[in-house]
């Protein structure tokens, strides 16, 4: 086991990793920027080293400074957290060459998963479905029909130069496809001056469902259930849960088998997450693999009764996975809300500044992961995550009740936060019934807008 670990991160995840190290009797080194001199992770670590100025490039992305910090403090391993250098295979290689253990997968695996084309090829080798279609521009109508035949209808035609929905067409049959390709070409030509289009599988009413797994250096892989992260705003997750409330046990088994095959094919080590889209019929399509601990890992920790960061550290130290089974059943239901320093009433613009009063919620079934405290000044340089609130219940309904109770108890004064927005989502009927797709937030705002318009017209 390591004697000392350096945490190359900040915020709640740095605090999270320090806690796991303390529980394992491992000494900790915090690194920080001058903007984070008063940060909680600096306060909680056994030692700390200032890396450079506030902007990430000069501190948390400054590889030489981080490696030097590990060297001068004799840290034997580096935990990268999430974000920053956590999926940087070059950084993992530098650690290796400096004989510092990078707590994560092998650099080659990180590089492969970081490259969309390679990752999709891997999935195809593992016989895991993807939403890949033509993998490049389609040449003509015949080519389009061939691709559609291979991947199955419905398909979506997208402009290579496109974006924002323009030049997009959905087709359900060969006939509608040939028409749609022509129409899309014309629209793309008009809109972007480039008629090139490509084809992908069209995922109807998609849910974002991801699988947590662990692999050790002895070839063992365990699958730790799934998380549903469909509540997103501009691809940023807001609320995550485990298990996915609409997944049948039959579909869960299929999903777990896909994840297992993919991780096996990649020879995966450490904690990792495989993200899928699930359509309304329960078909899964591989999107990507995240080769790090994820923000939303606590919901899995609670339903699976496991400490994932602890397992990452144990795996990196060469330990065999102590888990006896390959697949585990979740216990109860867990939700996570991300409380961000953003103003939900003003287009979610960042709201850094001084927290004049902070009070944490507590009681049955509540876990709080945060780096904030009364008197903490949220710096403007980094992401806006202030706090992760995790609620556990025997049922999804109980978890929602407890989450609402905890959000009501939480006091963060001095800056704007997303708490009111999160409460509205949790209280909405479609969330409570589990009837939604990744377009939930978009629809939510549309509904609000319509409501506002209809109110005005009265």
């Amino acid at each position, binding site marked *: 086991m390591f004697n000392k670990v350096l945490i190359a991160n900040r915020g709640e995840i740095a605090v999270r990793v320090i806690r796991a190290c303390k529980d394992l009797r491992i000494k900790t080194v915090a690194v920080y920027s001058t903007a984070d001199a008063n940060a909680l992770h600096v306060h909680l670590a056994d*030692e700390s080293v200032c890396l450079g100025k506030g902007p990430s490039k000069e501190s948390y992305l400054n590889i030489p400074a981080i490696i030097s910090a590990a060297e001068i403090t004799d840290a034997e391993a580096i935990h990268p957290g999430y974000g920053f250098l956590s999926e940087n295979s070059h950084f993992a290689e530098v650690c290796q060459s400096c004989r510092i253990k990078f707590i994560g997968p092998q650099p080659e695996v990180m590089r492969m998963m970081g490259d969309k084309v390679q990752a999709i090829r891997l999935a195809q080798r593992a016989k895991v479905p993807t939403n890949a279609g033509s993998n490049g521009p389609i040449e003509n109508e015949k080519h389009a029909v061939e691709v559609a035949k291979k991947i199955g209808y419905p398909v979506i035609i997208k402009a290579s130069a496109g974006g924002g929905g323009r030049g997009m067409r959905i087709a359900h049959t060969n006939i509608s496809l040939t028409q749609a390709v022509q129409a899309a070409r014309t629209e793309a030509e008009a809109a972007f001056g480039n008629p090139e289009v490509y084809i992908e599988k069209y995922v109807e009413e998609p849910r974002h469902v991801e699988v947590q797994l662990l692999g050790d250096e002895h070839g063992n892989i365990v699958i730790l259930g799934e998380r549903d992260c469909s509540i997103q705003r501009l691809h940023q997750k807001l609320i995550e849960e485990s298990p996915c409330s609409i997944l049948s046990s039959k579909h869960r088994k299929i999903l777990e088998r896909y994840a297992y095959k993919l991780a096996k094919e990649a020879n995966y080590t450490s904690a990792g997450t495989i993200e899928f889209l699930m359509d309304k019929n329960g078909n899964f399509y591989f999107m990507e693999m995240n080769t790090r601990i994820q923000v939303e890992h606590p919901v899995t920790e609670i339903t699976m009764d496991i400490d994932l960061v602890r397992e990452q550290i144990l795996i990196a130290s060469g330990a065999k996975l102590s888990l006896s089974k390959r697949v585990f059943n979740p216990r109860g239901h867990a939700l996570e809300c991300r409380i961000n320093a953003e103003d939900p009433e003003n287009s979610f613009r960042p709201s850094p500044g001084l927290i004049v*009063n902070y009070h944490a919620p507590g009681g049955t079934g509540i876990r709080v992961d945060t780096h904030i405290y009364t008197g903490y000044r949220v710096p403007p340089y980094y992401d806006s995550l202030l706090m992760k609130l995790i609620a556990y219940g025997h049922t999804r309904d109980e978890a929602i009740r407890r989450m609402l109770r905890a959000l009501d108890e939480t006091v963060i004064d001095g800056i704007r936060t997303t708490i009111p927005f999160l409460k509205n989502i949790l209280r909405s009927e479609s969330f409570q019934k589990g009837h939604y797709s990744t377009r939930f937030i978009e629809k939510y705002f549309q509904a609000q807008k319509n409501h506002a318009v209809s109110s005005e017209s009265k």
Partner: protein
Amino acid sequence: MASPNSDKAPSEKSLKSKAKKKQSYVKVCPELKMVQDAILLMDSSELYELHFEQDHVKIYLRRGPNGIPMPVHMPLGGANIPMAVPSASAENTVSAPENKPPDDKTVKIESPMVGTFYRSPSPDAKPFINEGDEVQVGQILGIIEAMKLMNEIKFEIAGRVVKILVPNGHPVEFGQPLVIIDPK
């Protein structure tokens, strides 16, 4: 926790204690941070009364009858005291004026990177500088080893070396003062 490895113990401790000193769970509004710090100062001293005045700020504190009645006055210069930032610090507000009386024009040269500080180009060689030396702009102050690379640190200001703060072979973090010079 176990004690740090013996060979680096002192410097690691100093890194650590420095971080600790910066840390304070502040809870008052920024405007009163200065008052809080002033109270801390009083608490850690034998003061009975404290007056402070600067630009638009005035503070007056007096201890209760249970306090230690030793009327001492605190000499206050016109040093710049950063206001409003909760980032605390006894260090900023206190040690600055103490270490730096109003007529003190010395300058601290800070480390531009994390690494190990060396005072000479090789173990057997003479140090680049010694206390009392007159130094020129561009003259080498020392070397910081980071990721096996030796980075020469140069003076960007000329003057007389008053104090060398980091011993040879010791680790330094970003912004850590290395040398105090009295500029020309």
